[in-house]
């Protein structure tokens, strides 16, 4: 149960963040030069791998057993509740929906004012935009996957899920060459928020000595309660889309 939910959570969380990073790379590549877009993105990937290499062992060296469960639980609660809060506001029409296609357009217009240097000269504006975009989305992937993978037995499903997400998103980028506007990112992000909040609550309580009735099955009823409360809140806050503020 935990294995499958961890893998699913990692796939969805990493996939959604990578979609946003892909939109930025595609925007820089299509409006500037592919070489500079890929160089900026590649440098960001190296930086993210360095953070992952430092974070994982540091987390495991500082704590183990119950304290580690509490640390992982708190991290997952912080990520999960933030994703859920934004998801509730978006689904209720109180905030603009999440869209990689919009990010693609924004990045393209951001670069429009910067003249492209002559061929053979590095395009630093394009490289920096690609680097910054991939770094920020990549760090979020590293933090979530590290938190999901830090608990005992969690590393394998977290890495499997992340690898599946990486293959899917890179394949999508090569095939489509522009972000897909039909992916229901807001609903998926809300689902990831439910999964991360559920894991966060479960591990925090376990680390503090709680004996969950049903063992791992508690993940199901905790997740159901979190999802139900989020749905009720969406209904309570819902208002017509015409009055939405971005």
């Amino acid at each position, binding site marked *: 149960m935990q294995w499958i939910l961890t893998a699913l959570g990692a796939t969805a969380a990493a996939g959604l963040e990578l979609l946003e990073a892909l939109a930025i790379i595609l925007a820089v590549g299509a409006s500037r030069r592919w070489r500079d877009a890929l160089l900026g993105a590649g440098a960001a990937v190296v930086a993210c791998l360095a953070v992952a290499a430092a974070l994982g062992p540091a987390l495991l060296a500082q704590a183990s057993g119950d304290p580690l469960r509490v640390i992982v639980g708190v991290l997952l609660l*912080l990520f999960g509740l933030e994703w859920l*809060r934004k998801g509730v*506001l978006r689904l209720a029409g*109180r905030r603009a929906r999440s869209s990689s296609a919009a990010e693609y357009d924004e990045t393209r217009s951001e670069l429009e004012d910067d003249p492209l240097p002559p061929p053979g000269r590095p395009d630093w504006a394009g490289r920096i935009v690609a680097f910054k975009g991939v770094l920020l989305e990549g760090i979020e992937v590293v933090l979530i996957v590290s938190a999901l993978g830090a608990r005992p037995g969690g590393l394998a499903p977290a890495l499997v899920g992340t690898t599946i997400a990486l293959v899917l998103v890179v394949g999508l980028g090569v095939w489509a060459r522009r972000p897909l506007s039909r992916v229901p990112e807001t609903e998926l992000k809300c689902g990831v928020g439910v999964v991360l909040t559920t894991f*966060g*609550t479960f591990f925090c309580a376990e680390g503090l000595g709680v004996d969950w009735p049903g063992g791992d099955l508690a993940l199901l009823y905790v997740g159901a309660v979190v999802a139900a409360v989020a749905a009720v809140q969406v209904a309570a806050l819902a208002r017509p889309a015409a009055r939405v503020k971005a």
Partner: protein
Amino acid sequence: MSVLRELRKLVLGETWVLPLGVAALLAASLILRAVAPDLWEDAGGFLLLGGVVGLLAVSAGSASRRRSG
């Protein structure tokens, strides 16, 4: 500096309500565990879950009111 600001937002979120709320939940859990260990072991998970969904309701509600105001 903008990258550092973005990184802080990534870890702690856009508002202080959630990190402060999670810290308060953790502190309350530790106190309850020390005061009533048996109650905590049996019902602590449900109490924490109640706190978590309450925190979600407060954070989304307050953000919604700010945007309406």
